[in-house]
């Protein structure tokens, strides 16, 4: 995305922001839920159900913030790479931790 903005966003920018906000936001939140669950179990001795419930209670607020951020951010590329990148990273880390005794 260019730094200078047109008065109204074009269809490509809208599509990019929607993809970032909804898909990137979902992946990021998914990573947050997974990693949050695993870390609460390992670090705070929560049982699985409690850990996941707490992650779910916060998940949609996290999603809301990153969704709005995707539309407010001046540099969409940075936001997109952060959401998709850290979402994938958190998910992978949680998968690895949950399969490691």
């Amino acid at each position: 995305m260019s730094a200078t903005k047109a008065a109204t966003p074009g269809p490509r920018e809208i599509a990019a922001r929607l993809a970032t906000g909804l898909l990137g936001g979902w992946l990021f939140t998914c990573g947050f839920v997974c990693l949050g669950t695993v870390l609460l179990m390992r670090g705070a001795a929560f049982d699985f159900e409690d850990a996941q419930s707490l992650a779910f209670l916060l998940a949609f607020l996290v999603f809301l913030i990153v969704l709005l951020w995707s539309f407010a951010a001046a540099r969409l590329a940075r936001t997109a790479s952060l959401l998709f990148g850290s979402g994938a990273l958190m998910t992978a880390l949680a998968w690895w931790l949950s399969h490691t005794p």
Partner: protein
Amino acid sequence: MFKTFRLSMTWVHTWFGLVLGFVLMACFFFGSLSVYDREIDRWAIPASRFEPQPMPSFDRMLEPAFRTIKLDAATRAEAQTRSRSPLPETLPLHEWGAYTTHRDPVLQMWSGFELPDPKDPENDHAFGSLTLDPRSGTPLPETALKIGSRFFYPMHYSLHLHWMDLGYWIVGLAAMAMLAALVTGIVMHRKIFRELFTFRPRKHLQRSTLDLHNLTGVVALPFHFIFALSGLIIFANLYFPVSGTLLKPLAEAHEKAEIARSGLPEHAAGIAAPLASVDAMVAKAQRRWAARGMAGEVGLLSIHHVGHANATVSVYRAGTDRVTLTGEGIHFKGSSGTVIREDEAVSAVHGINDFITGLHLQHFRHWMLRALYFAGGLAGCACIATGFIFFVEKRKRQHAKQGKAGARWVDALAVTTVTGMLCATVAMLVGNRLLPADLPLRGDWEERIFWSVWIAALVHAFWRSAPVLQGRIAPAWREQCWALAALCTAAVLLNWATTGDHLLKTLSMRYWPVAGVDLVLLASAWLSMLAARRIGRREPKLAVDAAQGEPVHG
């Protein structure tokens, strides 16, 4: 996206609100009706119009009734697709359940059967159901659709689109849009406190619409936010399906530990044994709840591994005395009636989760709070509907000058989702009173009426919205308001004609489920008539405004 944060948030508010507002309208409206789903069921099934009943005796009434439950043809056909070999005539029993609330005259019962040769061992159950009149022990015909609890209620979270859970995902997206619209709405309007007290109905339509949009949004802001959020949290497992995939090892280990801790057997013993008196177990459970100072009506009774030596009986209380979702279940050994365990106090996180779920599902007995929920839901509908109207009013003259059709299509969709949805809902009630009582698959016909009227309303709205192209009001609004008024009146009259339960009778008997539905229908008829006449008066005036090209500032 734009130069300022506020402009970006305004864009999100406008476009997310518009596109997903059409779905949100259905969620809020059918959610509001779900507050009184049991009462609508009474209206729709005249045979069930009597006072709520407590859980009847298991030993004398429920057990014989459970034994009559079979899979219906459709469920059997569906179960057959999950089985590798042809299903035997009688399937092995797995569980029995009976559920009631403080608002239910009839008892909902179900029987779970096991498929002997399933394709997927984790998907090997099939359920038969029965609705029982607890006064006599006679079943009600299952063909009678419980319109409130089985059609309007699932509509608000699934849209009845079950393929790939598509409806749930669309509703989830709409709920996220609601949260986003609320936050961005606050960002857009800085004078939020003043908006609580601002409504200028005599100003220009665009101004009064915006006032009402802000008022209904701000007055019930916490309600709207909590309901959208709690709805999402209730289905969080569906929106983030990680416990069956990524975190499966953790979830499975937890489940195993829970089963071991609970002391309740996972599999049937395979040794036949009769049940001890379940009534005695219920009485014991009620004594234990009373000792803890809790209301003691049974809400859910479930029996697992029916007929086996290790059968268990679980008795849960109806959580009528608190907001949180509660049950304080007590579990018994079926063959002897000894207590295996009592549900212990839940953890803090679990408690918060139960509270949020209970807040949304409202099992409590508090009619004033229930009425406030209904009002909050309708305020949400008003907020969304005025959002549509504001969108159209702000753009239609400009679009008319530029020869664009955008405002017209939005207006037509707004008509469809506001008056069209109301017409479809009330037409379903009219159909419910007109269809022959012995019609096979009667409920399916009622659903067909609902969808056909909604589609007809869509076609009508697109056809009768052409004047919006000239910056005028769409006649579709007025015409559908008249149709709604006629349908509402017809529903009340048909209820009287087919059941004899006219308003004077139901009011004098204080039978609120039917009287309430009739009163709301009459109030809706009156309001829509009023709306139709006012729109009718404004149509020519607005046409003149449009012709003069009156400048409008919003």
